[in-house]
């Protein structure tokens, strides 16, 4: 290979920036790429991504991180699902589990059997009762999933709650030790190539100029390169997702520690609760058109169950994405490329997907950006954002909070056609979305459908291959296996204390041992 290494310049050192630097340095051959990350300690990071999806484990495993070490460093806890409170009627709750519902019997997916037994009146259990992951959440337990595919203990996956700032710092150590150059500085101006319009270099306030071949924009909401410099238009999704503010306010941990994120619907939006080792992250996502900041703060303080730490921090945003994630030689990853509220913990997944796609489509040493590779990146970028959007919009569209202006509005809004079809199909037939590309499996869709009152009126005739008494026997057996195994789970806080507790942290509900 001739010539100098291909120069990648990453602008911004938040979660997106360091995940990008770590992923690229791991996936690209070191000899051919020169990776620089520019960040400024003066610029705060948003760090909304405290809650993750199970895919993050694939990313960390790809890097080769030691799980216990990373968890200690990032004050991380385990997460087996997301609990939604009050999204149907006030007080109703369900869990979106990181696991499967039931088993496939007689050639038909489980929900058809469940729907049949319910419609026949022989079974009154919720779909929730047929998920081991839900039972683990309810038991406030955690253990690593089993490996025997025949065991109910293998039917779930897990993710983490962590301090995104600490995770980024951990990745920074890991990445800079592997040859990625970190520069402290703020960008004063962007120099572009007159002919192509590509970014040629970033001029820092110090006077230094950082030239590169490809620039990754991890500058957050500013979208300095993709939005401001390249002028890639913004697609506004607030017609479907009207929330545009968030207040964040952490508190001390409470016992028992819970292995799930909780999202509670409120009059003007919803509040989150994310337990970490050393605190609970809380926040209130709300729609300024329907809820004042004062009301939001009152609601948030009312929702917090531990001793409040510090003052609330306000974030402003708009739901949507850029028309493309990659323009010219600038690629946006993270908030610079789009924003979806953290209702389904998708921010970090969207970063991870972009990093993985970019690594596979990265120009090779001595080459320029290839429009064919860029087109593929942008195609996948749209798939990831748009599918995630539909899933999040479903939570709003299927609410049952009648008489509250925000909720009445989103219950009656016109939906994307792709989402309308999914809802009608499930109601008519119990067929749930099952696609090859993009986020959210059939089980995820099932949990929200049932949890928010979208119930099937019919089921696949394939389910009728099982005689009804045989079906009921199997359902009872399944529910029993789930309950028995969940009862034996180690409490989450105890598991963390043994496995990955950070030094000096007192986990809620765990007696400090004298060892």
């Amino acid at each position, binding site marked *: 290979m001739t010539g100098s290494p291909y120069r990648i310049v990453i602008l911004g050192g938040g979660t997106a920036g360091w995940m990008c630097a770590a992923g690229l340095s791991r996936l690209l051959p070191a000899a051919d790429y020169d990776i620089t990350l520019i960040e400024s300690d003066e610029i705060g990071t948003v760090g909304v991504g405290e809650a993750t999806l199970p895919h993050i484990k694939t990313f960390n495993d790809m890097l080769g991180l030691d799980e216990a070490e990373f968890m200690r460093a990032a004050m991380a806890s385990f997460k087996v699902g997301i609990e939604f409170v009050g999204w149907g009627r006030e007080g109703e709750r369900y869990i979106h589990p990181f696991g499967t519902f039931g088993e496939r019997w007689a050639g038909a997916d489980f929900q058809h059997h469940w729907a049949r037994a319910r419609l026949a009146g022989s079974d009154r259990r919720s779909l929730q009762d047929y998920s081991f992951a839900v039972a683990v959440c309810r038991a406030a337990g955690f253990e690593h999933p089993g490996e025997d595919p025949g065991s109910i203990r293998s039917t779930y996956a897990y993710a983490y709650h962590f301090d995104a700032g600490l995770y980024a710092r951990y990745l920074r150590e890991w990445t800079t030790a592997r040859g990625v150059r970190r520069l402290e500085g703020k960008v004063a101006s962007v120099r572009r190539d007159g002919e192509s319009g590509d970014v040629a270099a970033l001029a820092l306030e110090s006077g230094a100029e950082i030239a590169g071949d490809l620039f990754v924009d991890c500058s957050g909401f500013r979208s300095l390169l993709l939005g401001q410099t390249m002028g890639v238009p913004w697609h506004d999704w607030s017609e479907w997702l009207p929330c545009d503010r968030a207040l964040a306010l952490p508190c001390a941990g409470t016992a028992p520690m819970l292995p799930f994120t909780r999202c509670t619907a409120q009059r003007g939006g919803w509040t989150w609760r994310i337990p970490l080792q050393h605190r609970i992250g809380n926040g209130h996502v709300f729609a300024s058109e329907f809820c004042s900041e004062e009301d939001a703060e009152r609601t948030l303080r009312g929702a917090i169950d531990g001793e409040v730490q510090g003052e609330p921090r306000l974030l402003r945003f708009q739901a949507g994405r850029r028309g493309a994630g990659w323009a010219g030689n600038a690629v946006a990853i993270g908030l610079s490329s789009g924003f979806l509220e953290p209702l389904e913990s998708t921010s970090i997944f969207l970063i991870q997907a972009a990093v993985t796609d970019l690594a*596979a489509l990265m120009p090779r040493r001595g080459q320029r950006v290839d429009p064919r590779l860029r087109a593929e990146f942008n195609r996948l970028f749209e798939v990831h954002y748009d599918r995630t959007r539909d899933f999040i919009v479903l939570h709003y569209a299927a609410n049952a909070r009648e008489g509250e202006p925000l909720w009445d509005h989103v219950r009656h809004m016109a939906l994307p056609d792709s989402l309308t079809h999914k809802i009608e199909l499930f109601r*008519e037939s119990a067929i749930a979305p099952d696609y090859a590309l993009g986020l959210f499996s059939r089980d995820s869709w099932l949990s929200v459908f049932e949890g928010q009152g979208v119930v099937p*009126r019919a089921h696949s005739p394939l389910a009728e291959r099982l005689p009804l008494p045989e079906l009921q026997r199997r359902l009872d057996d399944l529910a029993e296996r789930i309950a028995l195994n969940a009862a034996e789970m180690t409490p989450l806080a105890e598991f963390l204390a043994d496995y990955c507790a950070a030094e000096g942290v007192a986990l809620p509900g765990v007696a400090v041992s004298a060892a």
Partner: protein
Amino acid sequence: MSGVAILGRGAPLWLAAAALRRALGPAGVEVDAVALPDETAPGDLYPTLPAIEALHDQIGIDEAVLLRGARGAFTLGRNIVDRSGAEQPPLLLAHGGYGTGIDGEDFFPHWLKARHHGLGVGLDDFSLTASAAHQGRLFLPDEVSARYGRADYGYHLPAAGYAKNLKAIARHLGVRIAETRTVDVEHGEAGVTALRIDDGTRIAAALFVDATREGVVLREGLGEAFVPWAAPGDRMFTARAPRLASVPVYAEVRAGAEGWTALYPGLTHLHVAHVWSSAAASDEEALAAAGAASGFALEAPAVRAVAPGFVHEPWTANVVGVGEAAAGFDPLHGFALHALQLGLVHLIACFPTGGAMEARRAEYNRQMAIHIARVRDFEVAHFALQRHAGPFWDAARRVPLSAELDHLIALFRARGEIAPQEGESLPPDAWRALFTGLGVVSEGWRPAADRLPPDAAKAHFRKMLGFVREQVLRQPTHDAYLARIAQASRG
């Protein structure tokens, strides 16, 4: 839903009837099969993709019984050889996978890179099935071979014998069978209410499945438009020739200047298909020329039109088109049963249970549209990229590409990647083998492949080649295995 009536002929009718009855019978769904006069000619044969095995298993079809009864044989793929004078290398499209992962990463980028640096070993040598095909051996996958990669096979199923077998199975499963020369479609408010047959019987159903070649109910009855696809050939004949001394384990497709001739080995005969353009030759001329060119004595030739195309909404009102009623492909790659299988799988998944069915209808049409489009892209990719000489192949090169296919080819050229698509039913290795075999040379590979030192890659390659050679040598010859299957019935 009281019942379903299926109109069709031959193997497609009986496969649809058996599959629906087997899946839905336990739910009390009665299946009426209304059979129009069979048009199957002695030379007709279905080459199948490996996926058909799943449908056969679901119906409960035993492989050995099927091959004996239908006089079928195994196939590891199709080998397209140039007889057009363009002196192109043969294109073997084997059914199995190519290579095995290296340290958890795809094989293909490593092979691309090595070839760029002068590796002289082709993709076929890394494939269990392609290597077996070259050596006249079948490949029967086991746990050891599965760890290396997919080693799938399809069948050559003579249409008449296959239909006879399927009809017996359908009858055994409780399908009610009516035979008729003509059919009248009776309409009502919600679509079709009944089929009236020759003897005056009125076959009523809540749902009708159209498995006819020409879309008797869907297109002629309901007026759904058939959208033709461009293709270089519009005429086809099939014929039979005596069995070869040794039964090859793949199909050979000879690409001549005026069309192509396929040789499909079966258990008792060699089946021959020939496709050409009526603008270039009359039926008589084509028969004579193809007969002479093949070098075989052709028996029982039968000519028919080739008219690929699709219907936008194959499920309209209460009529569901499957197979050629919904979408017909060019015969070159043998996608006919694959298209039928896609329809049956999605129909069973979306089968209505009484009450509203609008959403399931929309879902069936959506799924069919994306799945059919991907299969069509595959045949168009071959048309567009092949390098045979002559007017037939010039016309093939003029067939327009979809935007998705255009992107797929561009991405492969740029980086050797197959863009993942919703609705894809062919494995990525099928696309890789097609592009590579047609001489599309990727300009690069994913950079991650450069993390492996060239010597380490070479060592992995040597190990793979050794493994493939050793595995293939352990396999039975096609002849020996067919003999074993034939004997089992007497034993």
